[in-house]
């Protein structure tokens, strides 16, 4: 028995495929988590690039837990959505692109935390902007997350034969 078949035989997968409310609830949580995750990551990136410079750089440290909450909500709800139709979603190119982009986006976030500006965040001046490594990551991250939303939306439109 293949992995996909085994997955679709799990209790959670059958619940997601057959129950009336499992799918819409997971979809709703996924949209809420997306707003929190992508919204706060993008505002963080803009701040690193010099927008909203009145916000003290040190304060950005407190945004990572907020982003993590959004990510965890979407990891759980996304897994539930995936289990509703494991065999067909892997054949959906838009879904594959989205997963790759989300993984890249999260790696970029970890990379951002490892840049000098964030490693020394407590000693950064209030009006600081990110150094070059942080700025490059911020620009790429903005593009990655906007493209991730686009491919996530297209997942529902790609027909799988």
């Amino acid at each position, binding site marked *: 028995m293949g992995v996909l078949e085994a997955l679709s035989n799990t209790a959670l997968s059958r619940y997601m495929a057959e129950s009336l409310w499992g799918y819409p609830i997971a979809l*709703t949580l996924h949209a809420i988590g997306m*707003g929190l995750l992508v919204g706060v990551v993008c505002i963080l990136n803009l701040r690193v690039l010099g927008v909203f410079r*009145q*916000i003290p750089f040190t304060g950005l440290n407190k*945004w990572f837990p907020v982003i993590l909450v959004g990510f965890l909500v979407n990891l759980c709800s996304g897994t539930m959505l995936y289990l509703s139709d494991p065999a067909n979603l892997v054949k959906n190119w838009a879904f594959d692109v989205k997963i790759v982009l989300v993984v890249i986006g999260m790696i970029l976030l970890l990379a951002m935390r490892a840049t000098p500006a964030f490693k020394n965040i407590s000693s950064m001046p209030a009006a600081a902007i990110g150094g070059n490594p942080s700025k490059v990551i911020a620009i790429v991250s903005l593009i990655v997350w*906007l493209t991730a*939303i686009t491919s996530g939306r297209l997942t529902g439109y790609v027909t799988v034969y």
Partner: protein
Amino acid sequence: MNVQHILDSIEQTGLSHWVMGHYWVWPTMETMHFVGLSALFGGLALADLRLIGYMKNIPYKALSKIIPLAVVGFIINTITGVLFFIGNPHRYYPNVAFRFKMLCILLAGLNLLLYQFVVKPKADTWGAGDKTTWIAKCVGVASILLWIGVITGGRLIPFLE
């Protein structure tokens, strides 16, 4: 002229035909609606969390500089949302989830008035480390819950037809 006639005449406009007549318009607007959602919800969540008492190391007035970005998200979503309605007025008007979503937006607007005239004047004086007030906490919690309600109503529209 009753409501059905108004909906009929909306459906017969050139704009309605344009929205429904091209395969790419709907998914493009949906993607923009999701990007707008992230700007709106992410931006407001950060400001609301400060009102509730999280990240007190950021002066409120500095953090509130992100609110214009949330307003941009709201404008994007008003435009795309109105276009959805014009495209398919008979689908949205009677939909319970759509009506719930509109009610939540209305209540969020009233909550915003409370914010603007009661909470903001005081919150703007909060420096780093300053505590919040009970009414600011109530307005912040209400804002987060109402926007979660808006997202929930929107996401459930296709499931309550």
